């Protein structure tokens, strides 16, 4: 079921409303447009866990939205399983940072949504949904509404919802940004377990270097907007990974490498760079 993804020379230009009169003309850019992605080349292997890191606004979410078929690329090509992406489809599941659960549906019904679209019979879909709700450890909450859940629970339901209709590709946009350290740790292990079980291809966007290293086969580092892939770092840590690995020397080496790649992004002096830095995790942080 694993599937590969390939972006070739992918670009995306947003047109910006309210800037049509040419007043926003800066640095010779065409007014009224914003280039979010420019010539992105990235090949994600079958069943790979790939993380995407890069400064805020470099186009990571935009990239996932294009993959999900929610926005149309401007030029280049984007292939999933060898086929050009042409709108949303059930072979992909996106998990948004804002959870985006359906407030008017119970946990159970939220998770069933994709199965309804797939026209899976009622009884069967209830069973499948229950299975995934249990998989994320929220079995006893299946009759609750989203407003009755904590942030971390909502996140897990969003994951269960994306898993339930069994897409080959999971697109995860800063999925754990809003949960506490401990919950995040538990969710990491859960996610890796699910990934190892289901062989899905995962693209995972995060601002946390540690999270990216811990989870991924490879980490793609992006340049500031307009975003392109600066470098792909191969994470050769053995699997299955336990949380102690975060304190290892190898881990620290990757952390330093990615940090550096993000630091050098403007090729200016270090002082300027650190000033504009928006990263959450310091390279020294977990080397205690």
């Amino acid at each position, binding site marked *: 079921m694993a599937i590969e993804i390939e972006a070739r020379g992918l670009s995306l230009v947003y047109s910006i409303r309210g800037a049509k009169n040419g007043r926003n003309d800066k640095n010779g850019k065409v007014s009224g447009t914003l280039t979010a992605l420019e010539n992105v080349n990235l090949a994600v292997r079958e069943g790979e866990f790939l993380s995407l890191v890069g400064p805020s606004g470099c186009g990571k979410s935009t990239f996932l939205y294009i993959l999900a078929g929610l926005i149309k690329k401007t030029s280049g090509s984007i292939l999933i399983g060898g086929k050009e992406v042409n709108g949303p489809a059930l072979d992909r599941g996106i998990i*948004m940072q804002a959870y*985006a659960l*359906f407030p008017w549906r119970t946990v159970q019904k939220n998770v069933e949504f994709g199965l309804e679209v797939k026209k899976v019979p009622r009884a069967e879909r209830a069973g499948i949904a229950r299975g995934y709700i249990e998989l994320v450890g929220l079995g006893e909450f299946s009759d609750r509404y989203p407003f009755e859940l904590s942030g971390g629970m909502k996140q897990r339901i969003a994951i269960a919802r994306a898993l339930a209709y069994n897409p080959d590709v999971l697109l995860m946009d800063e999925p754990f940004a809003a949960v506490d350290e401990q919950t995040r740790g538990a969710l990491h292990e859960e996610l890796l377990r699910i990934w190892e079980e289901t062989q899905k291809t995962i693209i995972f966007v995060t601002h946390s270097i540690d999270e990216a290293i811990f989870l991924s086969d490879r980490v793609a580092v992006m340049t500031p907007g307009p975003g392109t892939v600066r470098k792909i770092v191969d994470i050769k840590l053995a699997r299955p990974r336990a949380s102690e690995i975060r304190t290892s020397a190898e881990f620290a080496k990757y952390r330093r490498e990615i940090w550096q790649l993000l630091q050098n992004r403007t090729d200016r002096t270090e002082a300027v760079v650190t000033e504009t830095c928006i990263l959450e995790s310091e390279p020294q942080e977990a080397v205690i």
Partner: protein
Amino acid sequence: MGIGMKTAKQIKKPNLGFFVSLVAIIAFFLLWEWASRSGAVDSQFVPPVSKVLGDAWALLLNGTLPIHILSSLARLFAGLGLAIALGIPLGFLLGGWAPKLAGFIRPLLMNLSMLNPFALIPVFMLLLGIGEASKVGIIFWVLIWPILFATASGVMQIDPAVVSIARSMGAGGIKIFFDIIVPGTINRVFTGLKSALTLGFIVLLSAEMVGAKSGLGWLVFNSNKNYNITRLYVGILFVAVIGFLLSVGIDKLQKNIVVWEE
């Protein structure tokens, strides 16, 4: 985890508000009775509440009150039905396909509908005659705007991420409409309906005072004209009771349908 997850709904609060209201009403009635009987107020203009309630009971039993209540409610619900039938679909259209237009014409139409509806009564009489049509027509006019704009603003406040997620799972237009847009809007519609219904009821009573032969408004007006003071109070009392029941009823309906919000 289980303990922390008890919801507000499960922890039933003692219904203190209801109890306080009940005590207040009884106290008010007792004061009324005393004031009227002791001569503190002129009992010709304020008959004792026991007399009012007695008359009310008699008028209920002989079928007079039910006739008037039913004819008022029939007009109200006819106007409401028309306002819903037209206002909700138009609201969906406006909110879904022309949100900019909605933002633009909303203040205009809101002002227009806020135009003292009582002043519109003669206009409606002129256009639709003094029969049922003008009364239902005015209710319709008063109710449609809040319903239309509540629906449109309900559509507009739906989280775009929720629509995107549904699309990402391959949901088509029809599924998105019925599974996202409709439930995402309904709470706002109820809110609009609630504010509309109270105003609509009051406007109806006024309309019934002009050229009607039945209805609670007519009952109040006619009793006043014939110096039947007790019956006047009966009418007012039932206006209050029906108004109260209507707002409680719609509240209950909203709570029963919109179960997914705190």
